[in-house]
């Protein structure tokens, strides 16, 4: 599971069962959850059970899976139950049997066969040729908006990122601040540790993170959670490059269009127009991350997806002219020269240490380098040179030499004997962390017993 779907999982699993029931009424939602959220084996189970009239006995399902696939089977069944897709019914006199829960099964069947009157796959809008937008234009729009959001965050680090004239709406800025990705201090904006982690993710994961922030804020804006989620899943099932009508959207969903436009997820000519276009960011919401990575959005400026080459001598070459990508790269690499289509630099101990001190982990750096590896590099197995990966990890570990322990310090003992007795006692009960005989100080993780011991002693003495 990729990071993005994990994140959306955690959110979905927290929803109450009734919300699921309402969500699954939309065929597009059922299809999107089936496609995006389920592991591969779970999909096979769902499909096998979809057109069976009677529940499938547990033993039958177990017999279908090979003995060495038991762990995968348990994982799949467990997840299906948590998402309220599969339910084990145990009728008296009959063996325990699995069946799909109803709103989900009915919706998925509708999605597969078509029909019904739910309009959940978007109503296309008829328009003349000259008005329509090309896919390239939509991609350009989506990229501009999304990089505007990222640029707003990165720009706060003091690196000069031209924002390409994109002005972010107040809503987006508030969302970033309330999600803890940036901190607004007066007029300056500072990126947080979470913000750095966010920047280094894949686009798809970033979009999901942002949308879940949006969902969490939805209630405070008087928006219905289910309405919002259903709309997001519907967006995922639309086709790129086609206009869709706004006629049958609910009020909440029409409001959402405006906010999503700020992220570049949908495009509408003006808030009053009667149609909207989903961009690539929207249509790949419910597809696997690979679909998006191969799109032109993952990197900017050039059309190939990866642009970073890193050699075993820690030199980094990035074929990009995007200020945003250069700024991100600068977070953890020392850039030396810049050419019209390429920057060259080096990953050094200082640059990694600086990144770590800003809250970026070595894993994030490595994952960023891997996802944006140049096609020529991506052919290698493993993609990144192992020495570089190891060294980046080691550089981070250097900083982890200190370990903080919460506890209590005892000091100011009058005599050596007075110090030694409780110190020995603390050591015996296993709470002593550190002691210094000369200064007569010692440090414990729990103080209650030691304090009682001292009280007893002083009571006896005096």
């Amino acid at each position, binding site marked *: 599971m990729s990071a993005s779907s994990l994140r959306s999982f955690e959110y979905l699993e927290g929803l109450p069962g009734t919300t699921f029931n309402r969500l699954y009424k939309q065929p597009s939602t059922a299809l999107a959850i089936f496609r995006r959220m389920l592991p591969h084996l779970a999909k096979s189970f769902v499909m096998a059970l*979809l057109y069976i009239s009677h529940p499938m006995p547990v033993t039958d399902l177990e017999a279908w899976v090979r003995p060495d696939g038991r762990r995968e089977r348990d994982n799949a069944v467990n997840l299906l139950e948590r998402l309220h897709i599969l339910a084990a019914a145990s009728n008296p006199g009959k063996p325990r049997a699995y069946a799909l829960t109803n709103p989900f099964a009915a919706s998925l069947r509708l999605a*597969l066969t*078509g029909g019904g009157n739910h309009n959940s796959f978007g109503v296309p809008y008829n328009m003349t040729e000259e008005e329509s937008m090309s896919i390239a234009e939509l991609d350009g729009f989506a990229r501009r908006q999304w990089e505007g959001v990222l640029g707003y965050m990165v720009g706060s680090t003091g690196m000069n990122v031209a924002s390409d004239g994109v002005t972010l709406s107040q809503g987006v800025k508030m969302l970033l601040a309330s999600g803890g990705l940036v901190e607004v201090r007066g007029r300056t904006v500072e990126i947080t540790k979470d913000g750095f982690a966010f920047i280094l993710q894949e686009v798809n994961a970033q979009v999901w993170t942002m949308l879940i922030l949006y969902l969490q804020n939805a209630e405070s804006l008087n928006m219905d959670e289910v309405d919002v989620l259903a709309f997001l899943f519907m967006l995922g099932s639309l086709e790129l490059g086609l206009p869709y009508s706004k006629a049958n959207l609910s009020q909440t969903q029409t409001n959402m269009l405006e906010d999503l436009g700020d992220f570049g997820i949908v495009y509408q000519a003006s808030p009053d127009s009667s149609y909207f276009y989903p961009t690539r960011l929207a249509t790949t919401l419910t597809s696997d991350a690979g679909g998006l990575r*191969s799109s032109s959005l993952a990197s900017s400026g050039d059309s*190939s997806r990866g642009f970073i080459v890193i050699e075993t001598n820690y030199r980094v070459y990035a074929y990009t002219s995007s200020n945003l990508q250069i700024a991100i790269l600068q977070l953890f690499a020392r850039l030396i020269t810049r050419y019209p289509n390429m920057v060259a630099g080096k990953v050094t101990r200082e640059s990694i240490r600086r990144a770590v001190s800003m809250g970026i982990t070595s894993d994030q750096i490595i994952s960023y380098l891997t996802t944006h590896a140049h096609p020529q590099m991506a052919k290698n197995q493993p993609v990144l040179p192992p020495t570089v990966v190891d060294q980046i990890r080691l550089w981070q570990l250097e900083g982890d030499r200190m370990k903080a322990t919460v506890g209590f310090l005892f000091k100011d003992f009058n005599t050596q004997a007075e110090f030694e007795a409780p110190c020995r006692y603390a050591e015996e009960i296993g709470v002593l962390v550190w002691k210094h005989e000369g200064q007569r100080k010692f440090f414990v993780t729990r103080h209650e017993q030691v304090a009682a011991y001292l009280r007893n002693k002083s009571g006896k003495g005096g």
Partner: protein
Amino acid sequence: MNAVDGSDHYNKTSDGKWHPQPPPSLLTIILDTNPHAWALLSSTLPLSVAIANLLVFINAHLAFNNSNKVAIIASHTQRAEFLYPIPSQGDLVQANGSTHNGAQHGLDGNEAPTADDANHYRPFRHIQTTLLSAISKLYKATTPESLTPTTSIAGALTLALTYINKQSIALSSTTSSKTNADPLVVPSDPNSVQPATLNPRILILSVSGDLAHQYIPIMNTIFACQRLTIPIDICKIAGDSVFLQQASDATHGTYIALTHPRGLLQYFMLGFLPDQSSRKYLVSPTAVGVDFRAACFCHRKVVDVGFVCSICLSIFCSPPEGAECLTCGTHLRLGEYGGKPAVLAKRKKKRKKGTDE
């Protein structure tokens, strides 16, 4: 040196993290459209019902993964034809020259302006309309003269293999690089295509038997599939299919002979839907007793015991005329041919002895 190379764990962690989804799978369905055979089945499973079931199955396959692909090939009485995707005119023109990019464009670009329906997922509806119109076109073009009791499975298998090859080249070139303007990218080499990028498989819906006259081309495609690790799944609705059993057996595919043709969809969903990545964990149905008989090269008869040329391994049901191999022309010596009755006589004697004692 590999033993001391500690890069193993990088592969593992990166695989776990960066390739969470199994590779997209390409399902190539070969639909036997022989009108004779379907007419015989009309009481239990009419063609229209079978196609409706097939469409749901295709949609389910596409629902598995956003990048899953499907192709449907009709194996008709005398020819094989693509039902989906339909090669467009532009594609046919380019087929003579370099087809590399033209194919992709042509196959996707034939979107017919269909009645828009918000209740149907667009890609699903697209396939439905294309498939239905292609089938009706195919049947309209069928004349009574062209009717034979057989079907051109070999041609359809060959088409399927070419399509699979084309798609895996297209996929690997899009994943590695799109532009040659990039200074470090060398033009992708078709030979360097890794089979892991696409999970292809072939499903044959067989209704008619008597494939013996296509024995050699069928076996050739089977061996090609075996080499490319493409499983051939067989869904036998009717008819006798010696070689199709061998096909699924040799390529580790699924073989199901339908006992209740009305439950076609459930057979599809349970047996044929899981792709290679799920089949690792599942017990898939296979034929128990595989019929390994071969067809002779001279009369296309299925034989239990035959004659094999010692040079080229051609099979004959009876010694060829003049004892010359029809394939390689080698003059064969039959040796003590005709000694067969004598062997039988010996056996009889033994048995007699056994019964006597």
